[in-house]
């Protein structure tokens, strides 16, 4: 490949932490490309967690494969492993998946330009974790019309009727849980872009929860699990690095 003035390795950014904070001495996770290990680079009061990537090969592979679910899954998991490992030790602002800089100069320039925005986000996410909560319907609602449709039009009418009676937004009990969780959490965000198509899903959201509130959070969820037995199922996942609450850092 022809070398240009700017042709070192590219830098894949996993996230930014603060240099004053304790930081992992060494990460065990493989890098996003499975080859180049993640490492810290100090930039003023920040630490940028990066891996070298081949700016031509890897970036091209990203572009080619962003619609390839297998590729996307593997690389998202690697991204999460690195960010998760850092988050276990210190507060980290996760970078968006697939953020690559042409080199250190470009990375540092970008980070310095966002200095005050980054500072605000660090305050927001300090001592907090991200949690996902989903509520599923356990029992299917009885179908009003079970007779076979005799025409295409009738079929569509029946289908529309079924969709209409699907519980969800106007389920007051789900709304009650949502309100309680929102009160406990520092922030909430919509989620489920990838998984959201499941038909039995009634509601889902992502929350930023202070570690100090964890006990109340668990108690609230358990209370609803008990109350909803046989009717609705609650699924909770986490703790995640605060992926969904850092867009202010952009």
């Amino acid at each position, binding site marked *: 490949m022809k070398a240009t003035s700017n042709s070192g390795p590219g830098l894949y950014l996993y996230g930014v932490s603060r240099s004053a904070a304790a930081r992992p001495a060494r990460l065990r996770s493989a890098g996003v490309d499975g080859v180049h290990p993640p490492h810290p680079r100090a930039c003023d009061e920040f630490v940028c967690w990066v891996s070298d990537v081949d700016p031509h090969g890897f970036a091209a592979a990203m572009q080619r494969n962003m619609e390839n679910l297998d590729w996307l899954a593997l690389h998202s998991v690697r991204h999460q492993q690195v960010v998760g490992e850092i988050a276990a030790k210190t507060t980290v602002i996760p970078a968006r998946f697939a953020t690559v800089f042409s080199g250190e100069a470009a990375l540092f320039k970008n980070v310095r330009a966002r200095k005050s925005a980054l500072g605000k986000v660090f305050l927001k996410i300090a001592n907090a974790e991200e949690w996902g909560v989903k509520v599923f319907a356990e029992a299917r609602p009885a179908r009003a019309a079970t007779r076979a449709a005799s025409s295409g039009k009738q079929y569509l009418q029946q289908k529309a009727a079924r969709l209409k009676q699907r519980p969800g937004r106007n389920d007051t009990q789900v709304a009650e849980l949502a309100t309680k969780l929102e009160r406990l959490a520092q922030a909430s965000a919509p989620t489920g872009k990838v998984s959201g198509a499941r038909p039995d899903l009634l509601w889902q959201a992502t929350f930023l929860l202070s570690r100090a509130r964890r006990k109340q959070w668990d108690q609230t969820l358990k209370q609803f699990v008990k109350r909803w037995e046989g009717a609705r199922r609650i699924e909770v996942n986490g703790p*995640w690095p605060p992926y969904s609450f850092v867009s202010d850092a952009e």
Partner: protein
Amino acid sequence: MPNNPETVQLAGTSQEDASLLDILDHVLNAGVVVQGSVVISVAGVDLVYVGLNVVLTSVETALRNLRGEDLRPKKASGNE
């Protein structure tokens, strides 16, 4: 371990693919504001960002198609 966030099963059972989908849900949720689509040529471009709106739509479609056939992901042939 935060490395592998647990999916806490509070009641009932879940699909096997739930945790992978959860990872995608959270990892790809970072900075949901998508400014247009992608610049991926690295030469001369400092920040390379792939348009996730495109990605997410296609992932959703892929998952929906998968579900149409079979609710579970195919298991890898060998055990761990």
